[in-house]
């Protein structure tokens, strides 16, 4: 609807009257009680929903248009020092490995030995349909960043262990030199939940320069919890606009290191 073209001239008196009518109508219209099933459902879902630590949550609700997100620059001194120490230790670790320094053979996760591979390993195919918000920030000519967009969806797989309600947080950058076409880099955290437990992981993906907006090639590793403790699921997703088909493998333990 093009409001500008049909917009009547300003008329404060009539706008006030419209406001008053609207106020009365909204008061009359508002239901006084929620549906009876709502609270029990919320309680049940809360019981199965794990809290996310603050450092994993983008401060999205304080986001303001035009404010460039430069979280590292906003870190306080202690956090910056901690980050430097962590980076230094990581670098030292990489140096030791590259230099043939003393390393220890990683012990296999206990869960691997506790699970019978024949029982748990399965190829899985399915689909993911989700929705996501549309907030974005233009960071340069043809470049856009989208951060902390929360989505929900449903994963339907031929293996019931991976079927369930899904919550997703998307982060992606778009490079769109042509309208609606161009490369993108994406990452999203995903949480799939069902009666047996949950899967959490990070998926990474790209869109190639000659592809249209919405296309995506994504893959990643999920870790199981609940009755799926000790299991991992590697997924490769293809699709567009948050509707994907995928195939992958459920297996015990994690990826070899």
């Amino acid at each position: 609807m093009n409001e500008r073209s049909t917009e009547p001239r300003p008329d404060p008196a009539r706008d006030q009257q419209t406001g008053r009518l609207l106020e009365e109508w909204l008061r009359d219209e508002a239901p006084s009680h929620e549906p009876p099933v709502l609270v029990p459902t919320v309680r049940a879902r809360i019981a199965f929903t794990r809290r996310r630590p603050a450092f994993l949550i983008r401060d999205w609700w304080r986001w303001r248009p035009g404010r460039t997100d430069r979280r590292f620059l906003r870190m306080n001194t202690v956090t910056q020092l901690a980050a430097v120490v962590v980076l230094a230790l990581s670098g030292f670790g990489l140096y030791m490995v590259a230099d043939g320094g003393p390393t220890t053979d990683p012990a296999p996760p206990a869960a691997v030995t506790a699970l019978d591979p024949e029982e748990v390993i399965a190829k899985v195919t399915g689909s993911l349909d989700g929705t996501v918000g549309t907030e974005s920030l233009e960071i340069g000519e043809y470049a856009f960043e989208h951060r902390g967009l929360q989505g929900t969806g449903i994963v339907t797989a031929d293996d019931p262990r991976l079927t369930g309600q899904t919550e997703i947080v998307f982060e992606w950058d778009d490079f769109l030199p042509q309208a609606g076409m161009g490369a993108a880099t994406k990452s999203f955290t995903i949480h799939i939940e069902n009666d047996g437990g949950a899967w959490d992981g990070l998926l990474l993906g790209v869109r190639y320069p000659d592809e249209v907006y919405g296309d995506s090639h994504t893959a990643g590793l999920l870790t199981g919890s609940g009755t799926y403790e000790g299991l991992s699921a590697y997924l490769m997703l293809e699709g567009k606009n948050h509707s994907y088909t995928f195939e992958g493998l459920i297996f015990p333990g994690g990826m070899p290191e």
Partner: protein
Amino acid sequence: MTLGDTNDVRQPGARSERGLVQAAMAGDAEAFSDLASAVVARLYAVARLILRDEAAAEDATQDALVVAWRDLSALRDADRFEAWLHRVLVHTCYREAQRRRRRIEVEGQVRPISEPRDPGDQSVIKDEIERGFARLSVEHRTVLVMHHYLGYTFPEIAETLGIPVGTAKSRIHRATVAMRAALTADNDPSKQRGQVA
């Protein structure tokens, strides 16, 4: 006065509810469940007004409370829980509206041909408001609900939605003007035939 009181939704939470917020922020799921029970009626009312659909409002409210629980550690000030929760709700309402938009667009709704009626009749006015409100975009309905139902000021709306104050003002102005235009159109018999809402 409580956070869940639907008669005066602007009052800040009572001390006990602030305690619940703090306990929930510390990870107490039971406290959050109690808090959810206290606020759910009003959240549902707001979602119902914004979305104009019972099932969609139920889903949006449910999602808002679950997301609020999951991300509560991002809330720094317990006193701002209400505004924070409303913003979470608005986001879940937007998502829900988007999810259902395609189906609604496909189905459409052909309004029946209506007979001329007395424009002064209260039931006629309510009917016109309802139709005009339903025709607004979800963003316009949101600002009208926040302003005229929750009683939020322009800066409060701007802060809750994460938009500049000027944008909040103009959005409310346009929504009001669109409502006025819709009411005017509904009183014009020449525009009442075979409209697709």
